[in-house]
């Protein structure tokens, strides 16, 4: 007589066998005292195991509402999408930059049309920045226009051409540097000159970084080599009352400035740097590109600063 193997008896007691297998085993068990004893022993072992594992169970578990987890999953999806979008824009920017530079450097090549409008915010063009021709910046918050060529009247065009084909006059806002806002958290030397918003726009071609809907308290500017746009610090007041400083300029200068401000012992923190439109300048018959970034510096948590940095527009 073939007895029921131990593993099969475990599977039988765990209800893991088919109906026909169960019938076969039950038929055998009815006639085999040895297998009955084996079954009972395994049933005892099984109960003992269950009891032991129950002793090693966590205390009362109360799952959070499903809606909370769903909201967290949604937030994570959005962040993932934003990261993907930035990567995609960066790659596209690099490709277009190479293409534009090659066009500029190839005297025998056919002139190619100027790239037009990749624009996530074209529906809100009145505050739009002017970006020079062949600009390949990939900041998702930025508008890209078929703007005048990078030579000549690069920053002097008084109108902004929209992706839709229309144009608007550049907004001239005169905002005097606020008195009494020497603030606060930054240490600035004499090279930083207070300027009005109009002056800052003129010096940067309209690329003044601000967080919309927050009051601008102060704008400081520092000229670099004279051929690039100046380094800018725009001070605004957050709804919490905190002063925030948006620093925009060439990568190396922003990095050096921010690291100077983040000295141990201060509560000043910085967002992660975000890309802003690069500088292009001609020298010896070629075009040089200088990458620029912006960062938000304040006495706020880094997460808050990163969110604020995402809201910055260049106007």
């Amino acid at each position, binding site marked *: 007589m073939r007895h029921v193997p*131990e*593993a*099969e008896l*475990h*599977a039988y007691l*765990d209800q*893991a066998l088919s109906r026909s297998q169960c019938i076969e085993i039950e038929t055998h068990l009815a006639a085999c005292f040895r297998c009955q004893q084996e079954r009972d022993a*395994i049933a005892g*072992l*099984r109960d*003992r*195991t*269950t009891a*032991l*594992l129950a*002793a*090693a*169970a*966590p*205390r009362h*578990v109360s*799952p*959070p509402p*499903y809606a909370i*987890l*769903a909201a*967290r*999953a949604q937030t*994570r*999806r959005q962040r993932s999408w934003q990261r993907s979008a930035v990567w995609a824009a960066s790659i596209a920017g690099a490709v277009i930059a190479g293409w534009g530079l090659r066009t500029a450097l190839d005297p025998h090549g056919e002139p190619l049309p100027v790239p037009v409008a990749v624009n996530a915010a074209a529906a809100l063009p009145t505050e739009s920045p002017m970006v020079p021709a062949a600009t390949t910046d990939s900041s998702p918050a930025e508008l890209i226009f078929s703007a005048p060529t990078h030579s000549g009247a690069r920053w002097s065009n008084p109108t902004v051409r929209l992706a839709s084909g229309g144009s608007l006059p550049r907004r001239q806002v005169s905002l005097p540097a606020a008195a009494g806002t020497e603030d606060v958290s930054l240490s600035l030397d004499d090279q930083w000159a207070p300027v009005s918003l109009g002056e800052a726009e003129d010096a940067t071609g309209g690329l003044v970084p601000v967080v919309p809907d927050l009051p601008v308290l102060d704008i400081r500017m520092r000229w670099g080599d004279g051929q690039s746009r100046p380094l800018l610090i725009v001070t605004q007041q957050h709804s919490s009352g905190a002063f925030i400083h948006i620093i925009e300029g060439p990568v190396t200068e922003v990095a050096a400035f921010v690291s100077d401000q983040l000295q141990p012992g201060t509560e000043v923190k910085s967002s992660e740097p975000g890309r802003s439109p690069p500088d292009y300048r001609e020298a010896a018959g070629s075009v040089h590109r200088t990458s620029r970034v912006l960062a938000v510096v304040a006495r706020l948590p880094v997460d808050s600063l990163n969110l604020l940095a995402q809201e910055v527009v260049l106007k």
Partner: protein
Amino acid sequence: MTELEHLYQTMFSSVVRFLYRKVWDQDRAEDLAQEVFIRAMAHNPEKPRAWIFAVAANLARDEARSAIRRRKHLTLLTNDPVTLARPDAMADETMEHDEAMAQVHEALAALSPRDREVLLLWDAGMSYQEIAEQTSLAVGAVGTTLARARRRLVEAHDQNESGRHAARS
């Protein structure tokens, strides 16, 4: 109610229990279980039950590796051996219960990783078929593995208990 929401309502405790016996920290087990379901929402897997336990096992494995790294780091810092994580203290429970949990912890640690995995998956309510898919065992081998795991768990527990009695007397 979606299938995933239904699974969340019915399986969350099982997933926490499964994770708890791997990380031995209830808060951490609940955090990891939430992470499992958040990932499930993002991936919308075809076989959510099996997927959930597979991800839970992976997260627990990552957690164990991190714990080992932390322990090594602490050991380097203090130059003292750092003991293994123990079940968290249960102030509201009796000493006996606390001790019983520690004994099961030790007994489970005496099993091979595969035997332990199969036993914990079975205790979490998975079928033989699901256990086989997750552990790459043949369905027929699940019963054999489970039989061995049960036997060894009880033997290890009894040995530890008799050792403690001998030490006391």
